[in-house]
């Protein structure tokens, strides 16, 4: 008996690895090796032109000595995550839920909602620069005359708004796919039991969606902590550093500055990874109670 169980366990393990292996091999070669190499670079001084030189924790020391990081990039990044993640998650969940009702024109709505997401972040950023230009459409419609992207008070919010706008379509699709997993018989049972729509949403839909919500929030947190394309194209961190985020600072050190600081940039990247990791673990605890990330 014990022998057959362990034999089944072994065959399951082999199956598991066979299922994972096509992905795992390529993933290891590219992602894991690159990740480890970046960690190695964080302990070096590297200008891309000469081979990396070991300098221990100097890169990390410089990161935590850097004014731009401490006073701008760090607070800006947290501000961005705290504002954007909840808004885009709630918005896309509401949209997906509305879409999942047996309403007419569902197909049309779904297509239309996906529109903002289909264009690349670079292209949509260009379109938004044009829309929010001083002479642009937005000012023309609202009859305002604000230079949205050149004003330290507004630029960051325009970028946030754009990100919520463009990601909600994608997240809605993911929620929608998750909603369709919930068996209609559960809803029917709830209806027979006399649950109203609000109760059904909070007591059935949300709990059933937990894995998907965890996915959307995690991907959202990771994506927002790493916001880069939009800032790179729209403001390049300005005006007066009001849109400088950690990832933009990493890019600035790694490629834009006259003297390249790839080692220091990698150190900041490791710091950012640790920040995201901590936030993800915390957020997982909030969504699903305690336990390690892999469990659910």
């Amino acid at each position, binding site marked *: 008996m014990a022998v057959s169980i362990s034999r089944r366990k072994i065959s399951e393990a082999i199956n598991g690895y066979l299922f994972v292996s096509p992905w795992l091999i390529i993933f290891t070669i*590219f992602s894991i090796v690159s990740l480890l190499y970046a960690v190695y670079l964080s302990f070096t001084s590297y200008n891309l032109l000469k081979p990396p030189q070991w300098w221990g924790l100097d890169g990390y020391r410089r990161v935590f000595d850097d004014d731009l990081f401490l006073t701008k990039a760090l607070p800006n990044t947290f501000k961005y995550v705290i504002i954007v993640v909840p808004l885009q998650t709630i918005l896309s969940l509401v949209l997906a839920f509305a879409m999942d009702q047996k309403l007419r024109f569902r197909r049309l709505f779904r297509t239309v909602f996906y529109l903002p997401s289909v264009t*690349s972040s670079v292209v949509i950023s260009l379109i938004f620069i044009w*829309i929010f230009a001083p002479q642009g459409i937005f000012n023309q419609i609202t009859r305002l005359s604000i230079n949205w992207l050149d004003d330290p008070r507004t630029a960051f919010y325009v970028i946030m708004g754009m990100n919520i706008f463009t990601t909600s379509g994608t997240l809605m699709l993911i929620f929608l796919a998750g909603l369709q997993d919930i068996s209609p018989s559960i809803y029917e049972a709830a209806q027979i039991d006399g649950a109203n729509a609000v109760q059904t949403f909070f007591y059935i839909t949300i709990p059933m969606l937990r894995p998907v919500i965890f996915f959307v929030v995690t991907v959202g947190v990771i994506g927002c902590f*790493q916001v880069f394309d939009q800032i790179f194209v729209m403001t390049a961190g300005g005006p007066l550093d009001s849109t400088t985020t950690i990832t933009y600072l990493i890019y600035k050190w790694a490629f834009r500055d006259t003297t390249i600081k790839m080692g220091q940039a990698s150190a900041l990247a490791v710091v950012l990874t640790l920040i995201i990791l901590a936030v993800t673990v915390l957020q997982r605890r909030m969504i699903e109670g305690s336990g390690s990330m892999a469990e659910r």
Partner: protein
Amino acid sequence: MTVSSLSRSGVNQSAILLDRIRKGIFYAILIFWTVLSVAPLYFTLVFSLKPIADAYTPPIWWPTPFTLANYETILKTFDLFPRWVINSVNISIIVTLFRVLFCAMAGYAFARIEFPLKKLLFNLLLISMMMPGVVTLIPSFLIIGPGLIRGGISLGSLTIPTGFNLIDTPWGVILPGVADAFGVFMMTQFYKSFPKELEEAAMMDGSGRWGTFFRIVLPISQTQLLTLALLTFQGAWNNFMWPLLVLRSPENFTLPIGLQWFRGEYYTLYSVVLAGSLFNTLPILIIFFVFQRYFIRSIASTGSKEG
């Protein structure tokens, strides 16, 4: 939080009224968001049909004066344009096919099969998503190109290369693209919320893991697979940074890289850029429309899968 704990109440007239109000609210939400979603692309379309000098000039609702010159500029300036479209299509399709299959397999294993080091691998997957791409660019490029250790590792007379030497080939873009952490994460979460009954029945019938996966799991997870396929295709199609580094010859470019030509150093000709971005967007929209039908069908199949 079970269903039985909810209070019971009969279905009556007020419930129907409530249902109407509820639907009204949903329609209002949907229509409001529809207007917002359409606006940027609508304006993009309008102004791409106006002359370059009118990039900010009203009227904003209708393309007057009307011109097709911007589209002509794009089609005529580069005779490589059709090549770029073909390259983009090829790369995106191959990446999508492989990635969806690999991610579904791996996601299924993470969700359902017990194997050693599973948690560690899954955590590594998540961590790899957290490392910003700006710093992994160089090592990834070394791996796809000349190798992390230049000249390879020598073992006596044998030299093992540490890189793939795929620079300036489509495979240099495709290969790293087929294994994606995001997709595996997504499929894992989907399969976790999947009902287990059907699979268990199939396993009882004696089909092994593989038979169950290909005959039962893949077909019933159609919606999720299509969602991943769509997101993958869209991501591959719009991918910019990586192909920019890997592809060198103009004839190997993908569409977004070629279209970038129209962004000047000192000023941008917006009307042309807008027209170009529509060119870039169109294929994904078409694919999405084609996908639509399957989405509807798979809703039906989800309904019947409980049997």
